[in-house]
């Protein structure tokens, strides 16, 4: 969202923009969201509108499925070498007819499981049996196994970093139990799992056995505000958990929802009242505390969680059917392995003021903050050059 906004603001002021995106389509992490807080509107339409504006704008060249390989400062501006990856299925030709899927004996040709408009099929080349049946049946000749990556050089006056965030694996922090049970999910995994436009059509069910859960625990600050992993507060998670828990309650009031939080950070417009809706009886329970252990119970009996309710001082061991972990978000430029081309980063992996950046790579930010930072970055980019 930050990159899209910055590109639109630059183009709107008469500048040409190259928008480099690693995914199939623009949209980044926001494209994975089902709903926006605090309006509870679908996230897709506003995002799609902005994406459309980008694609329509002749001043914006969109480079999907691409990455910046090298970036050199030159006497005037920068030269970037951008690598366009070579997908087996060319998304600009694929009509999503699914004939490759029917023809493939190995089941590696499938509809894309992520945000992409228009929707396309993808083929995981490394698991392919090389029979080429798909190439034969594809009516648009979109499938080719011998495409090569293209490297192109782009010259630009200025670079804006808007690479967003990644989830950090919680596997090393064993007390969260992530990866030990299908019903222990990260918040983004849960967002996709419960999405109305997702595979489950908005039904709230367990991943382990597709049964309706009786209870869901949302654990805040998982991996975040924690000097062992991420010292920062990821800023978006409190509202994100409130949004998800309230949504679950609205879909199925019988599911017991508990949010285990440290500080309930609700600083934006209407955010605190959004949280208040909970206290006023729709049944999401807010418990202040941190879990010390999350572990699956044997025999499919759900997940045991050990925590202290720090407001009552009671130590609890409770069983939940699902656990959603919130907080493990970091600047995507800090992820391992480090990309070859990257700006100067702070100790926590955020882009320093030495480079122009916006969105989560600059500082944890939600959609609203990202859009503001993006416009501000666009202004600095334009006027610093003049």
């Amino acid at each position, binding site marked *: 969202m930050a990159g899209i*906004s910055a590109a639109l*603001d630059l183009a*709107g*002021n*008469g500048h040409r923009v190259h928008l480099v995106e690693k995914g199939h389509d623009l949209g980044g992490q926001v494209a994975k969201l089902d709903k*926006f807080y605090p309006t509870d509107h679908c996230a897709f339409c*506003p*995002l799609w*509108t*902005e994406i*459309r*504006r980008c*694609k*329509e704008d002749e001043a914006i060249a969109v480079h999907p499925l691409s990455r910046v390989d090298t970036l050199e400062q030159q006497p005037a501006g920068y030269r970037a070498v951008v690598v366009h990856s070579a997908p087996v299925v060319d998304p*600009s*030709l694929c*009509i*999503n*007819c699914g004939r490759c899927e029917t023809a493939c004996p190995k089941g590696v040709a499938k509809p894309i499981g992520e945000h992409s*408009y*228009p*929707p396309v099929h993808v083929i995981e080349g490394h698991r392919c049996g090389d029979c080429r049946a798909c190439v034969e049946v594809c*009516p*648009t000749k979109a499938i080719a196994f011998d495409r090569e990556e293209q490297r192109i050089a782009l010259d630009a006056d200025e670079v804006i970093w808007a690479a967003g965030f990644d989830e950090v694996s919680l596997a090393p922090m064993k007390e969260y139990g992530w990866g030990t049970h299908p019903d222990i999910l990260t918040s983004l995994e849960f967002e996709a799992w419960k999405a109305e436009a997702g595979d489950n059509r908005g039904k709230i069910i367990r991943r382990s056995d597709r049964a309706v859960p009786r209870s869901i625990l949302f654990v805040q600050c998982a991996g975040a*505000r924690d000097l062992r992993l991420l*010292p*920062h*507060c990821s*800023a978006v998670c409190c509202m994100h958990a409130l949004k998800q828990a309230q949504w679950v309650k609205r879909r199925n009031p019988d599911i017991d929802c508990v949010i285990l939080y440290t*500080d309930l*950070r609700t*600083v*934006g*417009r*209407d*955010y*605190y*009242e959004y949280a*208040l809706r909970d206290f006023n009886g729709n049944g999401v329970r807010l418990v202040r505390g941190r879990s010390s252990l999350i572990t699956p119970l044997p025999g499919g009996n759900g997940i045991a969680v050990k925590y202290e309710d*720090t*407001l*009552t*001082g009671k130590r609890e061991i409770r069983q939940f059917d699902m656990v959603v972990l919130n907080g493990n978000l970091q600047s995507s430029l800090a992820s391992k392995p480090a990309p070859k081309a990257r700006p100067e980063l*702070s100790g*926590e992996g955020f882009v320093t003021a030495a480079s122009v950046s916006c969105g989560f790579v600059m*500082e*944890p930010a939600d*959609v*609203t*903050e990202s*859009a*503001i930072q*993006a*416009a*501000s970055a666009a*202004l*600095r980019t*334009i*006027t610093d050059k*003049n």
Partner: protein
Amino acid sequence: MAKIGVILCNCFGEIGNTVNLESIRERLASDPSVDFVILRESLCQPGDASAVHAMIRDRGIGKVLLGACSPYGRMEVVRLGLAKEGVDVRTVRAADLREGCAWIHGKDPGGATRKAANQLDMELALLQNMQDSKDVDIRVRHEALVIGAGPAGLSAACGLARMGIRVHLVDRGTAPGGLLNVVTKVYPTELSGPEKLKPLVEMTGGNPLIRFYGKTKVASVKGYAGDFKIVLAGPEGSANLRVGAVVLATGARLLFPQGLYGYGKTKNVITQMEMERQFATGNVACKTAVFIQCVGARCAERPYCSTICCPLSLKNAMRVLDEVPGSKAVILHRDIMTPGSVLEAYYRKALHRGVQFIRFDADRPPEIRADGQVSGVEVFDVLSGVTRSIETDLLVLSTPLVADPESAALARMLEIPVDKHGFIAEVYPVHPVETRNDGVFICGTARWPVSSDQAIAQGEAAAVKAASFLRKETASALSMSRVPGSKLGHAQANADACTGCGNCVAVCPYRACKLQRVGQRSVSRVIKVRCKACGSCAAVCPNGAMQIPEQNYKVTGAMIRRAFREVR
């Protein structure tokens, strides 16, 4: 009537294997308004758009009907391709024959064909009956008015000037700076408020594109994006301006905690602003400073978090420890609101520095012991479950930013909404500095409580958005749209049919409908640059006087009649 060309896409059999395109072709070709019907294998593959464009051009076709896929299929690719070829996509309509007919009714080819024919018929009826909204061009005035010269307004004014736009910067005070002028140290930096604003204030004074009007208010606003007519009231009388855009950056006030925790009758109970003044004069003297958070905030009366009070207390608590040797600082809070990396690090710094934090429950607020002068605070520490008694000689109340009534009055003048707390509302979270009234932008604490850094970023954001509009020579009413492409059209009022009931004025979300006196009557008029063609006015007009020509009641009626032709 413009000739209509129909192009049906086979989609490599995805459509044609189920839907009988040949029978549809014959049916449509018999319609007198249809110039040709062509079957194509595809519309979205390389070269298709230019082939279609050539066909439209060569045959002199005014309107195009496509039978292809869903807008969420590849129709977006087709439309983008045609637009890039220079085709006016407002005259292109498409029926969804693939996802909506062939795919979902794959087992019933007859039904799929009937549904496809019906959808095409309806779109054809639309094309046959649609009329064009007459576009109007407005001349854009390349000047802007910025109201309020605090961090947000200064940043907006300087941003606009850096983009080469002439700015009129108005403030009710004598000098720029706003609330930040009294802040002696802006978190999380070591700079004072005036030091932080120095580059902006200097630019305001030295840049020939910026004119500062001190002790000046906005008396009236008329007009719309591109051409606002403004009257200012200042010490030297009134001034008339014509500007293309307005940035509202009037800021907010801090709540005065009269009657709370003995404020007003107890010595040594002060607000954060009074504490800033004490720091400025070097008069801070205390053994133990106690800060109480959320005083008058996150309560029934003001159910919101004011964003800045937690970091403000962190800063002032650390300052007490730094400047008063041997002192203690205690923050009584309900949640520490330091989202992000910078503020969370600042919180950790305060913890390391020795600031003590005690969490209290909103239902059990701290109680003070005072006898003309505060001597102690009793607070139930919810984390350890005990009541703590703290000896104190300085109690600092963290009160929230509250909306300035003057901002709400300005918002009414600018025809933009305020939220229930009195802060100015943006159009949507994705467009945080834009308002419902195009050409009016908002930033800073008039919008919502934010830090000075955020206010400055919002000012820059407002500047860049305003500049992208102000750089145009003219703006056409049809281009004033937030959705991609140009908008559908705009509403037109038929003065003969209008009875002046005002329904349209009440429902228009963009304040585009206005009642105007014509002779003895009052009739509705549409400000076309504001209209977004939502159709609300047409829906509530009892006389059919409000219509969008592209999709008026004749068009809709024709579509419905065509759809039910067989049934009837």
